[in-house]
C-alpha cells in the first residue's frame, strides 16, 4: 500500500510559508462503522493537511469514505486509529468551530425563519448576543442574495435557496473551517453551476477555509484549490494534487486535469469506469 505523493504541486511552497503549521492535520486516520454484524472499515490510514484559506476537496467514488472522513473532522465519529487535530488541538466532539453544510435540504430548522436560523446558530453557540447576531446574520444573508426571504420559513424555499441559507449560516459563524458534505449534489445541474460560482465569489470575498466533499470530478476541479483523491473499499489516499487556479483556466487545461483524475481514480481494470461523474 503505497500512498502516492502529489507529483505536481507548483504553487505549494509560498502558501505553506505563510501558514506555518497546518490548520487541520489528519494523520493516519482509520475509521470504522459499527454496523451490527460486519465491521465496515470506511477509511484506512488517511493523511492530509489543510492550510488556512485552502479550498480542500475530498474526491472519490461512493464508498471511499469521504463523507465519513468529513463527519470525523466534524467530531461526530472518533477514529479507531490516528488522530485529527484542528489548530493543534485534538477533535473530541462536534462544535461551532467546524460548521457543517449538509447535502440534505432538511438541515434548516423548520420552526425558524431564514433569519432566525442563522441568528439561532450564533446565539445558541454563545458566540454573540442577540442583537449582534441579528446584524451579522442579515449581513451574510445579503451575501447569498436572500435578503428578500429573511422572514420566510424554510419549507417555502427552493432547494437551492435552502442550501444558500445553510451556507450563510455556516459562514456567519466564521468557523475555523467550513465542512461541506456534497452540498450541491441534490440540486439540478443549472442551479448547481450557479451555486459553485457563488461559492467561489464568496471565497474571493472572505478567503474562508473549506473542506469540500464531492463525487463529481468537474465539481472538484472547479471548487478545489487542492484535491485529495480517495479509492473505495476502504478509502485510501490515491493522490493529493493541486487544482487549477480558479477563474483563469481554459477548458482544455480543465479537461486534461479531469481526464488525469479520472484515470487515477479508475485505473484498476476491475474498478467501474462507468461510475457517474456528472458536473
Amino acid at each position, binding site marked *: 500500500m503505497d500512498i502516492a505523493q502529489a507529483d505536481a504541486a507548483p504553487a505549494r511552497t509560498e502558501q505553506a510559508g505563510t501558514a506555518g503549521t497546518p490548520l487541520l492535520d489528519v494523520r493516519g486516520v482509520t475509521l470504522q462503522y459499527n454496523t451490527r454484524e460486519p465491521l465496515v472499515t470506511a477509511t484506512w490510514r488517511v493523511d492530509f493537511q489543510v492550510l488556512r484559506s485552502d479550498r480542500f476537496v475530498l474526491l472519490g467514488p461512493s464508498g471511499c469514505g469521504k463523507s465519513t472522513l468529513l463527519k470525523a473532522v466534524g467530531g*461526530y465519529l472518533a477514529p479507531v486509529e490516528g488522530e485529527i487535530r484542528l489548530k493543534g488541538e485534538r477533535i473530541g466532539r462536534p462544535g461551532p468551530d467546524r460548521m457543517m453544510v449538509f447535502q440534505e435540504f*432538511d438541515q434548516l430548522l*423548520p420552526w425558524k425563519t431564514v433569519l432566525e436560523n442563522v441568528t439561532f446558530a450564533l446565539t*445558541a453557540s454563545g458566540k454573540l448576543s442577540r442583537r449582534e447576531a441579528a446584524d451579522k446574520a442579515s449581513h451574510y444573508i445579503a451575501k447569498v442574495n436572500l435578503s428578500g426571504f429573511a422572514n420566510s420559513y*424554510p419549507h417555502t424555499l427552493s432547494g437551492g435557496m435552502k442550501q444558500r441559507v445553510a451556507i450563510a449560516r455556516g459562514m456567519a459563524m466564521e468557523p475555523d473551517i467550513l465542512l461541506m458534505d456534497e452540498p450541491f449534489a441534490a440540486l439540478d445541474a443549472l442551479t448547481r453551476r450557479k451555486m459553485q460560482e457563488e461559492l467561489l465569489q464568496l471565497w474571493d470575498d472572505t478567503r474562508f477555509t473549506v473542506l469540500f466533499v464531492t463525487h463529481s470530478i468537474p465539481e472538484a476541479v472547479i471548487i478545489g484549490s487542492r484535491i485529495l483523491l480517495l479509492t473505495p473499499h476502504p478509502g485510501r489516499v490515491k493522490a493529493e494534487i493541486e487544482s487549477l487556479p480558479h477563474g483563469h483556466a481554459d477548458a482544455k487545461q480543465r479537461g486534461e486535469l479531469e481526464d488525469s483524475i479520472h484515470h487515477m481514480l479508475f485505473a484498476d481494470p476491475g474498478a467501474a469506469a462507468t461510475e457517474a461523474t456528472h458536473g
Partner: protein
Amino acid sequence: MAEAVPVRPNIYRDPPDATQFSVVERPLGLWERAWNNGAVRKTVLLLTLALVWQLYALRLDNPLLIPTFLDTVRAFRDAIVSGGLLGKAWYSIRILLIGYAAGLALAALLTTLAITSRIGTDLVETLTAMFNPLPAIALLPLALIWFGLGTGSLVFVLIHSVLWAVALNTHSGFMSVSNTLRMVGRNYGLRGLPYVAKILVPAAFPSILTGLKIGWAFAWRTLIAAELVFGVSSGSGGLGWFIFENKNQLEIASVFAGLFSVILIGLAVENLIFRTIAARTVQRWGMQG
C-alpha cells in the same frame, strides 16, 4: 441520417413584461366562500346531526330513553341558570387541569431521561408497555385507599391516564427526529437540556401535539368516569356527579345536558386551543398540512 432532418432556425422571443398581465380572477359567490370555510362546514354538519336527533326522538316519543334535542337544550339552559352546571363544570375542569399539568410535567421528565441515557430509554419503554394498557379507572379503588375521597385520588388517576400516552408519543417523536437536524444541533455545541428544548422538542412537535391531544381526551374520560364511580359520596361533585345525580332522579334530559357540556368543552378545547397551537407551530413550519 443527418440530412433527413431539416435545419431549423433558432427562435428568439421577447416575452412581454409580467406587469402587463392583469390578474385573471373570478369573484366567488357567497355560497362558495362560505363552503370554503371549515367552521361553516362543521356547523352545517352539527346542525344536521341535531336535526336527526330531534326527529328520531320525536318519533320514538320516550323521554326516559332519549329526550329530544330541544328538551336537552332546555334542560341545559335550566341547569346553567339554576342548577349550578357552570360551577360543576368548573370543578371538573380545575381538577382536570391539575392532573393534566402534573401528567405533562412527569412525561417531560421521563422522556428527557429516556433520550439522555440508554437505561432511561429502557425504563420508559418498559413502564409505558406495563402501564399504558392499564385503565386508569382500575386504579381508582387503590387510589381511594391511598389518598381518600376527593381531589387527591382524582388527580392520581388523571396523572396515570395522561402520563403514558404523552410519554409514548413524545418519545417516539424524539426517536424520529432526522439525523441531519440532530447533527446540526450538536454542531452548534448544544448538549443536555438546551439540546432537548431547542432542537428535539420543536423537531418532534407534531408527535408531541398528538400526544397532548390524546392525553387531554384520556383525562376527560377518566375524570368523568371516576366522578361517576364515587360521586355518590362526594358532596360537591363535578360533571360526572351531575350526570349521576340526574340519572338517579330520572331527569334524563339533564343527563343528556351533562353529556352535552362534556362534548361542548371537548369541541371548544380542540377547536380553540389545539387548533391555534397547530396553526402557530407545525402548520406554519410546514411540518403538517
